[in-house]
């Protein structure tokens, strides 16, 4: 496959940045999107051009590092996959592909397609943890009984890899699907009840402080989420937040 790529180039956080067109050749339909980017960078280096910076790590859809807004969608046109799992068979020979960084005020561009998603880390620090006995007092995990339904729902929420596709896809750059998933995974379990009130209040406060937009329930986040995190988690977070504010 031979492709035309329109890629956002930005030398650093202070640069204005611009879209630049590149031709990439000899792309196999079996390659992943990131492998195609590797080929592009090899071709750019051979021409003496600075390679395109992009985030990646595990390349098997679990680390949440890869991002990219491809042809107007987070992680591209396929469903339930991250950019590293997106394959070139989703495109046709001669296609023009637009590649941009995830855009949000709370996700500033560091370079080219790399954005700073540390806002998510700060939200996690605000309440995404539980208290457990350690140092000889460790309790057997099976000692606390949890219903299958609650365990399943908590596990579904916990599959969020924090990639930020929800923020990138939302017309308001809202982080509520991410925060909803993180609140839910603990709210559904008995271990999460100790800090339940403070958790949701602190995580929502941090989310607002980071400058994310407000959810207007378009559902774009749920569709584009590579892990299929449900909007139900946002509804649960809203209930938890109301309940926490009534309690204290």
């Amino acid at each position, binding site marked *: 496959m031979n492709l035309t790529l329109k890629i956002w180039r930005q030398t650093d956080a202070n640069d204005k940045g611009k879209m630049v067109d590149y031709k990439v050749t000899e792309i196999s339909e079996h390659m992943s999107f990131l492998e195609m980017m590797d080929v592009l960078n090899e071709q750019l280096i051979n021409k003496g051009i600075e390679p395109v910076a992009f985030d990646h790590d595990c390349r098997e859809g679990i680390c949440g590092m890869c991002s990219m807004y491809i042809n*107007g969608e987070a992680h591209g*046109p396929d469903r339930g996959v991250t950019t590293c799992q997106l394959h070139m068979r989703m495109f046709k020979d001669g296609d023009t592909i637009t590649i941009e960084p995830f855009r949000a005020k709370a996700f500033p561009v560091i370079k080219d397609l790399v954005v700073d998603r540390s806002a998510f880390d700060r939200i996690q620090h605000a309440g995404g943890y539980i208290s457990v006995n350690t140092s000889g007092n460790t309790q057997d995990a099976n000692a606390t009984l949890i219903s299958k339904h609650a365990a399943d729902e908590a596990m579904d929420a916990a599959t969020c890899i924090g990639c930020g596709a929800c923020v990138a896809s939302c017309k*308001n750059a809202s982080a509520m699907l991410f925060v909803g998933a993180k609140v839910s995974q603990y709210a559904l379990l008995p271990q999460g009840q100790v800090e339940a009130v403070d958790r949701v209040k602190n995580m929502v406060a941090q989310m607002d402080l980071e*400058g994310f*937009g407000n959810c207007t329930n378009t*559902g*774009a986040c749920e569709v584009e989420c590579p892990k299929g995190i449900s*909007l139900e988690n946002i*509804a649960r977070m*809203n209930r938890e937040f109301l309940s926490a504010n009534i309690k204290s």
Partner: protein
Amino acid sequence: MSGFFKSSIGRKYAMALSAFFLMFFLLQHFAINILSVFSPDAFNEASHFMGTFWAVQYVLQPVLIFGVIYHFVMGFILEARNRSARVKTYAKNNGAANSSWMSRNMIYSGLAILAFLVLHFIDFWIPEINTKFIDGDMTGLLSNGEGFRYYEELVHKFENPLRVGAYVIAFIFLSLHLMHGFSSAFQSAGASSMRKEKLQLFAKVYSISIPLGFIFIALFHHFNH
């Protein structure tokens, strides 16, 4: 609860609450207006009751005015905040791939409804307030004293085809606004997805049938008088 309504989620609840109230008001407004198609007398009686009963005039009406203003003002505030959350927009964005047109354009359907409300207030509400509270005529009777004036006023307003056209267009925008707004309000209020399918079906029925009913009333009076 300090700071609740300043938070993003608190504002979602507040928008949802005002939306619930406005949707209930719309249903009640339709129930009275549809009477004009079947029975002018029943419409006159209901209108006179709503226009003179103290609890409606001095309790519900101020709450309604507050609800309308709050919904619009908070809608604009949230839209401004949401726009500021993405300073640099995408060169290519395929919003249709993951969300409905209605959900992405609530501000525009809302603005169309606001423009309609200005027309509607000039048409009905301001003359009504003028008659009752400026002129002091609380009788609800025609100037010749032969029966109530409400039905006559309604029919007279829908003689002008331009006004009828504006009403029809406005109700189409209202329908588009409700198609997302109805279920969105429930989602914001934390409704569980277990009830979502039934809720979305009810939302579709409500958001199409009520505006369609208002369009029918306007066209009925235009073509029958």
